[in-house]
Structure formats: structure tokens, C-alpha cells
């Protein structure tokens, strides 16, 4: 193992280039080319964290399949829920998987990708070198957020996609049955699933924004992700307090499950529209705060 470097190469190095941009930049430097999405994806995709998370989303449907194969049905005498219909076919299995994942798993996935992306760079000290490269701060946030959201969305699509395949393999390809008693041909069920995934993507956006803000604020990735998940749990708990009345409708998780409206014969958009608007409002405010803070922040990590 060599223990020292060498400066032979520097012997032949040319002098400083005289070519500079009007902004004083080195030749070939454009701020709009810094931290390209491909680069950021490479940075994130090589991480164990990313691989494990996405891997878990692939494994989860099979775990559920195993659980259903082991367990026995005990829902007699009650109106069926999605869980009771889960084994009736690919579409129903997918719906149940999404339902089971909505409350916590997807929240964690969204919080993880968005909360960890800046905070982990800070904890590795690599953030300061990116900023000095220089990647303009707003650009860094934008690229990181876009990639984090991209991974989140990929996870959100991956889970139902794998669930659909797993459900089809183990439970067949029967048309979807809804707890309301209707059935949907697979084509229609897939359209509804797309609507559900689309809604969830928008409704969970605030989780990303919250985690992102915390990740910009702190240098501890765990603090950002955990903090965001914690706040979502708090929101869920408050939402369970019916005494709060209409105040609950401003809780960001109040409309988490509004996508179940997409399973009615005629989709009711009222709740989903509120969920999307609420999430978008929170997202706007939280992201504005994240930008505002990061653009002014003294990076000392």
C-alpha cells in the first residue's frame, strides 16, 4: 500500500486557464448543470438504505401472501372489509396491501427518502464540498428533493405492482370485489388503483416536505426521518380525538384514507380533493420554510 502521494503529474500541468465565464466561473461550469439528476440518483441508489427500503417493498407482498396462507378466515358475520376480500384475487390483494401500507409504511418510506437526503450529506460532511463545488443551494435542494420524491413515488408504485403480481400468482386474477358489494373488471380496477396511487402520492407529499424541512434543519438523518414520522403519528392520534370536531380537518393526516372513496361505484372526489389541497398547502409552506432556512443557513457541519 503506498503511503504517500506524488506530485509527478503536477510537473506537466499547464498554468491556469484564462477562460472564465462572466460570473467568474471556471471553463465548462454552468450552475444549471451541477448535481444532475443522474448523479444524485447514483449517489442515492448506491446506498444500503435505498436498496433495503425498495427491497422491503418487494418482499412485503410475499410476506402478506404467506400470512394469508397460514391464517384462517374468521370474518363470518360481519360486513367484509378489504382484509376479508384480500385473497379473492390480484386486485383485491393489491388494494389490501395498499390499505395496510397507507398508515405507516408509506409514511416511513416517504419520510426516509426526503428526510435523509440532505441530512445524511451533512452527517458525512460531504454537503460542504457539494456546496463549494459549487452546487447552488437552491439547486441542491431542488435536485435532492426531486430525486427523493422520485424514489418515494417509485416505492409507491413498486409496492402495488409487486402486490398485484404476487396476488395474481397466489390468488388468481379474479375481478376486484369491493366491500360495498360491487365487482370491477381488472381493467377498471387497475384504473382505480392508478387513481389511488396518484392520490397517495399527493397526499403523502406533505410527509416528504416535512421530513425534508427537518432534514435541512438538522444534521442527524435519524432525527429528520424520525421527527417526521413522529409528527405524522401525533397527527394521527389527534385525528382520533373526535372531540376536536372540525379542527381535525386541518390535520395533515385527516384525509389519509380518502382514497377508499375511489372504490365506490361512483368515485366521490370530495374528500380526496380536500386531502390533496391540504397536503399541497402543507407542502408549499413546509418547502418554502426549508428553502428559506437553507438559503440563509451557515453550513458548519
Amino acid at each position, binding site marked *: 500500500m503506498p*503511503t504517500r*502521494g*506524488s*506530485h509527478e*503529474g*503536477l*510537473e506537466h*500541468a*499547464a*498554468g491556469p486557464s484564462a477562460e472564465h465565464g*462572466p*460570473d*467568474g*466561473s*471556471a*471553463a*465548462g*461550469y*454552468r*450552475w*444549471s*448543470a*451541477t448535481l*444532475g439528476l443522474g448523479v444524485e440518483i*447514483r*449517489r442515492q441508489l448506491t446506498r444500503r438504505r435505498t436498496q433495503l427500503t425498495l427491497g422491503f417493498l418487494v418482499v412485503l407482498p410475499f410476506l402478506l401472501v404467506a400470512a394469508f396462507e397460514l391464517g384462517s378466515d374468521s370474518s*363470518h*358475520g*360481519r360486513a367484509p372489509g*378489504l382484509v376479508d376480500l384480500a385473497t379473492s384475487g390480484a386486485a383485491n390483494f393489491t388494494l389490501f396491501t395498499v390499505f395496510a401500507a397507507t398508515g405507516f409504511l408509506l409514511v416511513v418510506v416517504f419520510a426516509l427518502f426526503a428526510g435523509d437526503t440532505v441530512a445524511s450529506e451533512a452527517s*458525512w*460532511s*460531504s*454537503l*460542504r*464540498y*457539494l*456546496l*463549494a*463545488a*459549487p452546487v*447552488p443551494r*437552491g439547486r441542491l435542494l431542488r435536485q435532492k428533493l426531486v430525486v427523493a420524491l422520485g424514489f418515494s413515488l417509485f416505492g409507491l408504485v413498486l409496492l402495488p405492482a409487486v402486490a398485484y403480481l404476487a396476488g395474481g400468482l397466489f390468488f388468481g386474477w379474479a375481478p376486484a370485489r*369491493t366491500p*360495498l*358489494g*360491487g*365487482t370491477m373488471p381488472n381493467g377498471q380496477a387497475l384504473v382505480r388503483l392508478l387513481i389511488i396511487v396518484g392520490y397517495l402520492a399527493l397526499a403523502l407529499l406533505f410527509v416528504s416536505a416535512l421530513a425534508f424541512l427537518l432534514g435541512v434543519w438538522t444534521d442527524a438523518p435519524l432525527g429528520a426521518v424520525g421527527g417526521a414520522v413522529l409528527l405524522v403519528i401525533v397527527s394521527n392520534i389527534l385525528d382520533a380525538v373526535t372531540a376536536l370536531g372540525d379542527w381535525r380537518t386541518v390535520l395533515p393526516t385527516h384525509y389519509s384514507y*380518502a382514497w377508499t*372513496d375511489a372504490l*365506490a*361505484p361512483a368515485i*366521490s372526489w*370530495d374528500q380526496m380533493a*380536500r386531502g390533496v389541497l391540504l397536503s399541497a*398547502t402543507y407542502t408549499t409552506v413546509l418547502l*418554502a420554510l426549508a428553502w428559506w432556512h437553507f438559503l440563509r443557513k*451557515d*453550513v*458548519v457541519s
Partner: protein
Amino acid sequence: MVRRRTALIGTGALAAVVAVTGTAVAVSRSGPAVHEQMLRVPVGAEPSGAAVSLDATLYTPDSRTPAPAVLLAHGFGGSKYELDSDARDLARRGYVVLTYTARGFGVSGGDIHLDAPGYEIADARRMVDLLADRPEVLKDGQGDPRVGVAGGSYGGALTLLLAATDPRVDAIAPQITWNDLRQALFPQFAVAGAAGPPASPAALTPADGPGVFKRMWAGVFFSPSGSPAVAGLSGSVGPTGSAATVSGTPVPAVDRSGGVTGSAARGSGETGPAIDRSGNSTASGATGSGLGATGPASCGRFAPDVCAAYQQVATTGRPTPQILDLLWQSSPARLIDRIHAPTLLAQGEADSLFPLSEGDANARGIAANGTPVKVVWEGGGHDGGLDETDRLRSLTLAWFDHYLKRDGTPVDTRFEVTVPSAALSAQDTRPAAVVRAAPGEPGVSSPGPVPTTTLPLTGRPQVISAPAGGSPAAVTSLPGVGAQLSALSRSGAGLGLSAMPGQVATFQTASLGTGLGVVGSSRVTLHVAASAPDATLFVQLYDVAADGSAVLPMALVSPVHLDGLTPAGRDVTVTLPAVVRDVAAGHRLRLAVSTTDQAYALPADPRTYRISLADDPALTVPLVATTTLAGGGLSDLLPWALGLLGLVLAVGAGAAVAGRRRQRADAPEPELAEFPLVIRGLGKAYGDGFRAVSDLSLTVRPGWVLGLLGPNGAGKTTTLRMAMGLIRPSEGEIRVFGHRVTPGAAVLSRVGSFVEGPGFLPHVSGLENLRLFWAATGRPAGQAHLEEALEVAGLGEDVHRRVKTYSQGMRQRLAIAQAMLGLPDLLLLDEPTNGLDPPQIREMRDVLARYAATGRTVVVSSHLLAEVEQTCSHVVVMHGGRLVAQGPVAELVGAATSLVVDVDDPVRAADVAGKLPGARQVEITGTGLVLQLVGTPRSQLVRALVEAGLQVDRVAPRHGLEEAFLALVGQEG
């Protein structure tokens, strides 16, 4: 269940109109206190002449009197105690509330006359008189209190009949009650004449002649009230000790006794006992007085005429003129055109006793008088169903606030329906109900007719038989548990008894292309021929899913009794049960005609019927356009959406403006373009007040290797961070090649940096780290000079290992290599030799010298003097955040030549040396002197010391820069 603290019943105060028997003040947990007064109210005597007084309670609010009054009436089998929580709630909201136990129940005296005008209704008017005498009650005139009346079921009919006979009543809220008790107990769903458009969604104009005796419900309704146990089962325990008769825990429905009147009555007074009764009817039959027995003793607390009439019907299954007249006397239908009090009318969808058609008839009749009517079809009813107590309570309160308090609150007159299984519960995704509303009920509170659609039916003629004795009979519903039964059959665990083989004719629609929101009664015309002159049939409409599973909504059936049939048969138009249901696309509707239903009296003789579709075989389905109430619609969201859009635009605009302002302030200074680094008046105070750098100015020229020297905490790192744009200066500025350094300034692309340790992705290799870093700059790979950088790092094959496996020194060298990527014009290195071993340090020194030799500039910070002295061409000494000296290293070293002199007597030596010209700063140390000698040769100093007889051990120059540094720092300190 509300268990009252015992209050003594006064006995000697009957001389007064009202006897005050006990007063209790209950302080509510929240809101103002409520005063409670137990009353004994004398009312009209029984036909036998026996005096009757009623058990009543007056609740008065703490303040705000005189206030409007509300009279609450309980359900059948109940008492005033089930109304307690409603009464308190209303009193807390500023109403004087009077509750009382009706004649024949609880500890009130008298017999049950079934809301007869001469008894129960007269009693209620007596209660209004009482309110008129109370000073706490707001009056509209002499003897005319401002009063609203609310009640459910038995109390609901009382409410309607009172409003029809007492003009002092100002608003009413009857719930789940009957319109025509004859139709309720002898339902006839065959429609007179041909089927026209329905007047209202649940309109039913029965054909002449009574229908089919509702045997099971009537049994529940009539028989148990006479038995002693009923008072206990009514859900409230009176103060007289009837608690002793309550055995075991109360039925769950009793807990719902809090509902504003209607649900209370239903819950405790009727549904509760009904469930209980159906479970042990034999037991109570044995202990109580059996139906077959005659004489007043067997009638319990029923008035003898009511009792006798019922027993006759129960025996034959067909009505007598006496009972029909008796039931008519107790029917709001008789006086409906006299009701002018604004009416909030709630009817239950899960109600086989008083179905929606009863409420619809009441609403239509009252609205025809020009009286304001709001109709609510709620998800509950006598069969159970949903518990919407809270919603009904707030609707009632809003109604009274508007019409009694007249406080200007707008009143909602929309027609509300509860659609069961219209959405999925967010908790468990099981079907959940949704409340929807239409501007008004067509034909009632908004103009008719009801919009309908017709669905063609198919099915060949079918012959069905009615078994002798009516057994076996289909089981569609059990009183009080009909809805639960329906839920069972949907889940596939049903009894399968709603259609007995050979007893049912079925006809189906085609699979629906689009979903239907059914609100109300469908209609169909059938052709019926019979082997007997009369026919008893039960018509049902199933919702059949694509997989064949069928649901009978709310387990409701339409009993039809036909007379005067001939073997040729005739067309009969039948109104199907009014339901609220979303029928999904792909489903079918199935019409089933059954010959039996065990809840009804059935013909004893066997017969056969031939059922076929009429010439126009179609089902007319009512569709009322409704919107989800809780959903709130989408139009409300427009302001929100626009506001959000505005917010987004404002945030974007704010960011753009701020960005442009920054750009303008950062105009380059071309005259400084040749200077790699110019710092002017730089200062940095952190948020916590700590000043890291103050008033620092320096200029660095190309080709320099500038040493930034200072002890730890001198502000070197902070300065470098500011030069990298990581930290904003508090004052002053940093310019690199004339461009001001701001976070992310483009000119930083000409700066390579290493500050406070390396920063790499631990999970990728050293090489990949350098590649990723260069890729992040967005510059062409060809400019990276990766080879040279790798050479500087000197990691060999280790560049392919993950960085997390590297030693500190390896990371350090990799970080310096990263700083050199692209051979930046200015290299900022913070303590680059930390963690390197001596050979590496030496190599690093060469690297930096070579680097500067290319015409580039290096700024190195260090706290090691030797390093700066050996590496740098220029030095800046910092201490406490300030610049204390700067200049070429040689100059700084030369300017401060000190001598260390070791002698045996330092004190005397200092004296001698101090007299020499050019001697300065003479200091005595432990072993000798330290002094500066300017302009005087050292030999002269030695000679002077020796001549003074001192022993000189050593004379040596002290390390130059260290001396200067300590001297400078010492001055500062």
C-alpha cells in the same frame, strides 16, 4: 342508563296545581348549571274515574330566562328518565325543558290509550299549560308559551297530534313515528288505481281495505307493556324501586337513550325490549298475563278497550272495525292538515314498524299546509341500523334555535338521507354510511314529481304456493333486528330463509350499465291470479351483485293483501319498500314475490298463486339527485385552491425577487480579477454572539502559498468557510478573482477546498467518490485531471475500496486530491497535514510548492509554525479572530531575530545586556535571557557578558517565526 339519585315523592301537596316534590341541582361537567325540579302533574281521570297524575321533571337553565321551552315525549315503554341527558343538553343551551312519563308508564298513573286524543294528547296540552304558568318560560301571549315539542315513535305521534290540536306549539321535531296506525299495523303496499308518477319518494297510497296484520311487531308493541317487567326494561329506572325488576345488564340500545327524543324512544323504549322479548317471549308469557287470557287483569296497563281490540285481532289476524277506528283516532293522518308548527321530521331507514312511507305521508301532509318541513331519512329506526343520535340531536337543536329562539341562525331545510354502505370506512374499509342531501324532498319540501327511471323486468309467469298454516314461512326480518339480519345475509352467513323454495316468484332486470342512487320506493305492476278469492303476498326488491350474491336492503318487504280475486287474476301495482341505496353498475335488481313472511299473519289455508309481469314489465325506480353532505362538494374548494395558487405564486415571486437583488449586489470588480483572494473588513459573529473573526483584511496574489497561522480558535477555519461560501460574513466581504463570494457563487468553481476534514460517501470507493464529486460540478470529465489528483492521493489500488474502510490519513489525502480536481486556480486547505505521517507531510509540502509553481495559488491554514515556515511563501498570523501580522515568511522571520542566552546569573546579565545599544525586550528566563539585538553584533553581547564576569553557556538565535508568533500573540493576549 341514567340512574337518578333517589328523590322522595311528596304525597301531601296535591292541592296545588303542581306539587314540588323535590329539587335537585345538577351541575353539568361543562357549560352552565341546570336546575332540575321533580313535579307531579294532575291530569284527566281514567274512564273508571280514577285520578291520574304524571311524573314530570322541569329543567331550567342557570340564566337567560325567560327562555323558550321544549317538551320532550318518550317512546313506548319508556319514561321521562330516558330523556334526562337530552333535557340537560337542551337546558344547557338555554331552554326550559319539561319531560314527563306518559300515562300508563313508569310511575305515572293511568292506563295506556295509545296516544288517544282524550287522554295522552290532552295530557300533553296540560303540560303546555304548565309551561304557560312558569315564569322561566318565554311567552308569545297570555297563556301561550314559546314551546317546541320533540319525541320519537310513541312520543313522535304524540308530538304531531299535540301540534295539530294545540296552536300554542311553535315547532316540532317528531321522529320515527307513524302517520296512520292502521297502515302501520295492517300494511297494504298495493296501490289504488294505476301507477302514476309518485308524489314523493316514499309516497304510498294504499288500495282500499286493510293490509296484512304485522303480527310480530304488534305482539311486541302490545303485549309486554302490561307485564311488570316492562317498566324496568324501558331503559330507565324510576325512583319507585322498579329497579328491582331489572335483572342483568341493560340491553345495549339502552345506552342510546340520550338521543334527542326520537332515538331515545326507539332505543330504550322499544328496540331494547323488543330484542329482549324476542329472546324470551315464553318466559314473560309464563310470568305475565298471556295474550289468550281475557279480562282487564291480562291487559296490564293497557286501557281495557285497547286491550280487547288487540286481543281480537291477534287471534284472527284480520282487523275489526273497532280496532281500525281506535287506531285511526291515534293517527296523525287524521289531523295532519292542522299542523302549522315548523316540522323537522326524521324517519328511520331501518324500520319495518314505521317505514319511511309513514314519515313521507306525514311530511307531505304537513307541507301541504304551507308549513316548513325538513325531512331526514336517518340510518336507524325500530330495527336498529345506524346510531345517528348525535346528528339528530344537533339537527333538532338547530331547528329549535331557529324557530324558538329565533336568534337569526339560518335553518337548513335540505332533504337528508343516509346512504348505507356508500363508502368504505377509513378505519377498517368495511362499508360505511354517507349522509347526502338534496335541496328538498321532491313533492314535500321541493316541487315534485320524483325523478324516476324505468328498468325492464324479465321473467316467465310462475306458480307459487302458500303452505297450510303459513308454515314454513320465510324469515326476512325479526322485529328490532331486521337490519342485522340483512347484514348477515350479505356476508354470506345468512339464514337463507328469506325465500322458501316453491314460495317465491322472481323477476330480474338486466345488468345495470350505470350505478343508480335509489332514494325512495320503486314500483312495479304484476299480474296476480289466485286459487282463493284473496291473496297475501310479500314483494321484495333485491340488489344482486354480479357474482349472484343478493341483498335485501334493510330486510324490508312490501306486504300486499288482495281481495276479490278471480282465477283470471288482475293487475296489481305494488309499491316496494322505500330504501336509500347505491346500486352499483353491473348489478341487477331482482323482484321477488313471496307467499310467506313469518313476521306477518298468514292465511291458514293452502293456496297457489300465479304471478306474472304485467303488459309493461318495468320497474320504476325513484332517483333523487343528492350530494354528499360531509364531503362538502367541490365548489367550496375553489377559494382554497385559488388561495393556495396565490401562495405558491407569492413564494415563487418572493424567491425570484430575492435572487435578483442578490445578483445585483454582487457585481464583479474587474480591477481585482487578478487577485485570487481579497478579504476586506471581514467579520463573523455567530448566532450565539460568539465572534469568530473581526475586521480581517488581506490580499493574496497569484503564485503565493499563503499560510494562515494561528492557534486553535483563531478564526482560520471560519475564514476559510466564508471563502467557500458556506458561512455568510457578518461584515465585510471576500472576493475571489474580483467576484464576491456568496453561497454557491459561480466563481467558487475556480476554488478547490478542503476544510475541517474529509467528506465522502462512505459506501462507495475512493475513485467513485472523486468521480461523483466531479460529476456533481457538472463540468466536463476531461477537465477533472483525475490522474494527477489520484497521484497526489497516492492510494494505489485502495481507491477501489469503500471509503469507510480507509484510515484517517487515506481519507485526508483523498480529500486533498478531491480539492485539486480540475486544478483550481485557488486551493484552500485547512490543516492539510493533520493526521499525516512525516514522509507524507513532506510530500504534501512538495505538492503544494509544485502546485503554486504552476501559477495557481494556495492558502493553507495551520497551527504549526514549522510547517508554515517550510511550506509557505507568505504568512498571515491570526489570533482571537484578528489579523496580527502578515507578510512574506522571510521578512517576518527576519524582522524578529531574538537571541537566547544561557548564563549563570540571569539578573545581572539582563542588567549588562540592557545597557548595550540596540538591546530590546530583555526578558529573564529560568536559565538566562531572551532579548532582541538590533544593530549590535552578537559578539559584542558575549564580550560584555564575559567582561562582567558572567559564565555564558550558550548564545543561539531563537526560532524566528515562533518568536514572532508568540510575540504577536502575547501582545494581543
